[in-house]
């Protein structure tokens, strides 16, 4: 479904991706993991064509996304759903209108049919009863579920989740994990989850890429990564405080710092 080859991308002097290649398999859940600032969200924006790489090729559904014209890009984006970290719901529209919005814009369906589609999508995320609420009245978890319903509004072939589990209480977390897995299975989606929540992501991902310092530090099934020989991957997957990524920010020794004042 998605093939990335020799991708290099920089912001100013900082190299976010340094010649990485990876594949996203159709109808599977692929997780992109890594510490904060590893460029996970940037990767989603590159796949969605919102950013352009310095070099390399990103093929989505057989098309080089950065060589498409704007209308072609928009046509391809109709096959992609994206769940933003903040939900990105339009704040001046109700829950119902937020989900109806892409359907109204891209189809000529009559309003009665749009209502049916929206209610079914909301039912899938368990929020049919919240259709008249405004985004400001939703909890963080509910906002993400509404955003999820909106992301599947046009029945996309693939869906990208940007940090779906961050800042969620345990119940919302459980709901989101189960929803992502269920939607992927029932709608035969290709899912990409960008996250640093190891346990939750590993519990539903079919394949995981771990990014660090612009490179792929490890890849494999959750089990393969849990048993990885790499100390760095071990530290990340098991959340160890010290290891290849040191607990202390680089500095002189404490003795030198304290007694050379």
């Amino acid at each position, binding site marked *: 479904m998605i093939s990335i080859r020799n991708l290099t991308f920089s912001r100013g002097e900082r190299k976010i991706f340094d010649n990485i290649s990876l594949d996203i398999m159709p109808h599977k859940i692929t997780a992109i993991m890594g510490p904060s600032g590893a460029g996970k969200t940037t990767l989603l924006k590159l796949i*969605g064509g919102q950013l352009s790489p310095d070099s390399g090729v990103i093929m989505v559904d057989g098309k080089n996304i950065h060589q498409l014209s704007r209308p072609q890009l*928009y*046509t391809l*984006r109709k096959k992609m*759903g994206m769940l933003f970290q*903040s939900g*990105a719901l339009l704040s001046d529209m109700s829950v119902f209108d937020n989900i109806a*919005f892409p359907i109204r*814009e891209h189809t000529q369906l009559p309003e009665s049919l749009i209502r049916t589609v929206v209610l079914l999508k909301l039912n899938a995320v368990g929020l049919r009863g919240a259709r008249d609420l405004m985004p400001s009245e939703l909890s963080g978890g509910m906002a993400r579920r509404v*955003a999820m319903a909106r992301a599947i509004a046009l029945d996309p072939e693939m869906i990208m989740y940007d940090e779906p589990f961050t800042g969620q209480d345990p119940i919302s977390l459980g709901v989101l994990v189960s929803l992502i897995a269920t939607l992927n299975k029932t709608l035969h989606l290709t899912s990409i989850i960008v996250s640093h929540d190891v346990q939750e992501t590993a519990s539903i991902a079919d394949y995981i890429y771990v990014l660090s310092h612009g490179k792929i530090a490890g890849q494999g099934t959750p089990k393969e990564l849990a048993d990885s020989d790499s100390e760095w991957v071990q530290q990340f997957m098991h959340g160890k405080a010290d290891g290849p990524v040191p607990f202390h920010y680089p500095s002189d020794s404490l003795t030198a710092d304290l007694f050379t004042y």
Partner: protein
Amino acid sequence: MNFLQVLGHTTLKSLAKLGRASLFFYSIMTVLPYVFMRPKLLIKQIFSVGVLSFWLIIISGLFVGMVIGLQGVYTLSTYGAEASLGIMVAASLVRELGPVVSALLFAGRAGSALTAEIGLMKTTEQLSGMEMMAIDPIKYIIAPRFLAGFISLPLLALLFSSLGILGGHITGVELLHVDAGSYWTQMQSAIDFYDDIVNGIIKSIIFAWIISWIALFEGYDALPTSAGISRATTRTVVNSAFAILFFDLLLTAIMFGST
């Protein structure tokens, strides 16, 4: 060397921003016809940009007119010319104060609100979200707001001038007893529809274009942080004020300079 580096950096940064602003304006122009096909979007924005500025403009216009009435009578009575108060009030309002003051007020009330709104939409990824839904935010969000500003300000400026003339009447005629007949007839005979009123409207159309462009671009180009939105909002008000005053001088020189 350091000074030259700073100068070069600032110049390049400003030129890059001007380039981005020009491309932004071009992209608004290309989708503008779409707004006419979606009148609901436009009406909603005219309400938020124009109608909600209504009371500010009415009250300011009335007070500015009343002050001109007072000042006019005191100044003109020195020469025994208080009968010409109507001309003074109307000319200063229709030619200058109507378009300029209403534009400055509009930049402070509606321009800053537009910048903050668009900046916040950017910060909360609403604009990115629309792009990923294959909906062009320039078409759906920016263009209706641009057109709403373009339509609202000239009407608000006319309202400002009308209320100002009424304010001048209240202080000059009702309070200081200038002859009502002279106030209205001299105004009617001296104010020319094309030279004064139309030129005033042209000014406010140009100010509307400037304010809407600056306000929307600053919001769209803002750093997606609370400090970024705050700075963008300030830049909208300050840059709009400078641009209004500069273009006012330029337009006045073109319109009235040769007479």
